[in-house]
């Protein structure tokens, strides 16, 4: 299966809206990441022209921040917290279980572009440890059954 087709017109109009100063780069990248789901590498040169930077500089900013991706991600991005608090509370098993449930390794995206599995250093929700996020929703105080049911919920949504 292929990722969602990129709407190049939409992409160009985002770039056009942010045309101008160099400080506009990060808001521009954020908007592309948000709308398209990732930053198509082919768009780097267009972006760099719009903000008057070298393409290599734009690439450097994209690859520096974990929030930007140059490859398409799944519809649901699952982020397992691997911070200290979560680690103490057993996030290693949570990760192992999630890998097994989704059939993905860390950083991988499923071939049908439904799921991407990532780990983060800390989600800032230590009181909920062990925690994970699916897209923008937090899931805390996880246990293996809870992980399975959360993931099943998203898989089920897809099944319909």
């Amino acid at each position, binding site marked *: 299966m292929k990722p969602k087709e990129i709407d190049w017109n939409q992409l160009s109009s985002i770039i056009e809206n942010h045309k101008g100063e160099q400080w506009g780069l990060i808001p521009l990248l954020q908007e592309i990441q948000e709308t398209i789901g990732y930053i198509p*590498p082919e768009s780097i040169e267009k972006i760099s022209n719009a903000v008057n930077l*070298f393409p*290599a*500089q734009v*690439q*450097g900013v994209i*690859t520096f921040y974990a929030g930007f991706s140059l490859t398409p991600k799944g519809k649901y991005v699952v982020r397992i917290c691997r911070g200290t608090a979560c680690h103490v509370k057993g996030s290693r098993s949570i990760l192992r279980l999630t890998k097994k449930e989704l059939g993905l390794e860390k950083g991988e995206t499923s071939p049908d572009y439904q799921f991407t599995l990532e780990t983060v250093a800390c989600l800032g929700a230590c009181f909920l440890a062990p925690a994970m996020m699916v897209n923008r929703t937090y899931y805390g105080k996880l246990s293996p059954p809870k992980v399975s049911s959360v993931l099943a919920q998203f898989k089920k949504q897809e099944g319909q």
Partner: protein
Amino acid sequence: MDEISMAINGIRVSCPPGITILEAAEQNGIKIPKLCYHPDLKPFGACRLCLIEEEKNGRVMASCVTPVAAKMEVLTDSPRVIRHRKNIVRLMMAEHPESCVVCSKGNRCQLRGIAAEMGLGETGLYPIPNYKSIEQANPFIVRDLSKCILCGKCIRADHELVVAGAIDYNLRGFKSRPATLYDLPLEGSNCTFCGTCVSICPTGALSPKTTGYVGTPEKETLTSCGFCGVGCSILMGVADDRAVEINPSGLNGSVNGATLCVRGHFAHDFLNSKERLTQPMIRGESDLKTVSWDEALDRVASRLLAIKKDYGPQSIGFFGSSKCTNEENYLFQKMARVLFGTNNLDNGGSMAGRPALQIIDEKTDGRSRINPLANLEKAEVICVLGADPCQSAPVLSYYLKRAAKRGVPLIGIDPRKTDLFPFSTLWLAISPDKDYELINCLAAMVWKKFAHDSNFIERFTEEFNLYTEALSSFNPERLCLASGLDMKSLAYAADLVKGKKISFVVGHGITQQKHGARSMEAILNLSLMTGSLGCESGGLYVITKENNQVGAWDMGTVPDALPGRIPLGDGSGRGEWERAWDVKISPDQGLNVVRMLEEAEKGNLKALYIMGENPLRSLPQHERVEAALKHLDLLVVQDILDTETTRIADVVLPGAAFSEKGGSFTNMEGRIVCFTQVVPPPRDGKPDWEILDLLGLKMGYPKAYRSLERIRAEMVRLIPMYAGLQETPGDAWTWIRRTETEKTLRFSPLQTTDQGPMDDDYPLTAILGSQRFHLGGGTRTGISKRIKDFGLKGEVSLSSKDGARLHVKSGDTVHIQSREGALIREARIDEDLNEGQIFVPTAFHKNDAMNLVGLSVLGSESSQGLKTCQVRVEKLEGSK
């Protein structure tokens, strides 16, 4: 502002505000170790080695990014600072491969140097080498990023000095490395292989790819680059009496600072090539055979004197070199004028656009001879006309790109969108024959806005009224109709220059063009009108193709002027030279190189003495030139390489390259750069001045010079322009002396333009131009190993529309025919070209591009110029 008083290591120092603690310490002789700091780059604070401790509050900070403040008391080597510093170096070493034994950075590695200074051998840490594969597909630069310490010097040099933007940091944390876009190899990026990053890299992460020698050169000697008119200051690394490495000198005030271009850095391989001439040769029955110096010089002297006796002085010609030194050109023309009484003198620069330079010199009465490129830092608006400095004079292009990045408006006027296009504020892609009209239209629009500099005009100029009257006949609307430009762009251009001093950068698209002289006058008129002359924020920078093009002219190796640019027609000036040399000098112009060849064809010119030129490659119509030279009774060629021309010579004298002798070059700025010998000439080769000196003695000149200093002393005495040489040490520079003049500047009268009808048989306009890997005809760069290994094909570029019409795709072979000649080349479709124009790079394939244009005297009525010609393009069958 008041000086700031502070204490460094307990010593009271005072320093100007705004500088960093590191700079303050260095100014006071206190050394602080550093890896990421470079005086030409913005402070960065990456390596943290320059840590210092503030005594009062115990704060530790990086001195390279911390400005000085009053009453500060800092310690640069407290136990705490030393402990931190050692740990930083230990961590760097733990990540660094232990390959010092085979690393080509050798003893110049700054990391190794600092570790040694600190007494760090074993790190005592668990090594975590960060291995990356070594990338070295291109023949110039080896990237071994396992040795990278992330100081960012290469990236900052790329962005701040060279402004190429090929690399930046990629990824983050342990994985972070400098990378090109999409992490492609360098040849897949917009890297120009200038090698600036290689010279600036403190470790072995970036090193030059050398073929013959690996390691630290035995010594490094300061000299001057042998290629283009910028004349960069370089350090030549020597091992076993061979030049093995080139680096920018980085000298304060030098034209190039820490930068160089691909030619300067990597194309000097020709110095060690097997094509070097090493022994004098004389033509026997058919072949050239090796002889002793005595025999060769005897032959030259006796034959030349015999020809002079039999046929008179007009039967001998002298073709000097814009690549030989000032001292040599001075001797060369003196030999011609004193011993042979002829003005048949010329140098390669005459075909590289001297007539246009001459116009400025005459019209300004020598007031625009000095144009330091550093003034471009103060430019208000830059106008680049018919120039592709990114290819022809890369170090000049860095100045322009830096200015553009700072926000100085840059207007490009060129049919092709060159590499400067992305930096330009406005690009006027005018066709090559319309620049005269364009400049005048621009002037008319400035006049309409009353944006001229009336103060300047009143004080220094005359005939402004006539000029403005004539301007009224130039109609911007009509130009737009005829050229496809739009009024909006033209109006924008006028807006950009109005009320400002303009810095003009003029290239061969003007100076080698048919009406180059006329366009030069128009440019000069516009700069007078805007008061752009004689100030630092404006100026007229004309690109010279070769490193001593200006010097060869100054020394009088031209048919119409004596040393010091004294016209032959100037009676009193000539009289002074007659007295100095004790001879009669004919006031009549001698033959220039084209006329010499024409006279040779007719059999009137019997002998030609060529020093350091390869006309069989550099001039148009190679076959015609060859036939003319073969028609001579005597052809003497003094050169450093076995060339097309030496192969047909009767006597070949092996000279010395710039690195093998002392001397001076004068660059496009008017800077006279002196240099000393770096290595001896190969085998029997001799410095060219020495050959001329010996020859002079044999031909009856009473006294030999025997040393460079004596020649220089005579130049200093007799040429006021070069008086500055007197107190200049052997490896420093001085400037051409300004001549005092009261003459008012006169606006040049305008001419009406009418283009001849297009020839339907040749519907396309071919533009000839250089590529940064080669210089001129490519005699030297063409045999430089690394340039050859890069494997450029020199494709001809066509616009996509012409490509479609002619069914030519990239990779096809095309036949290009002009009225004068033809060539076959691979084609490439270039989106940036205008329809109806093709681009043919020079220097490739024995410089066959020059066969498309006719051999003619540049600037003469009949000349079609050397820059463009009408052609017909056909796709060759059998190509893909």
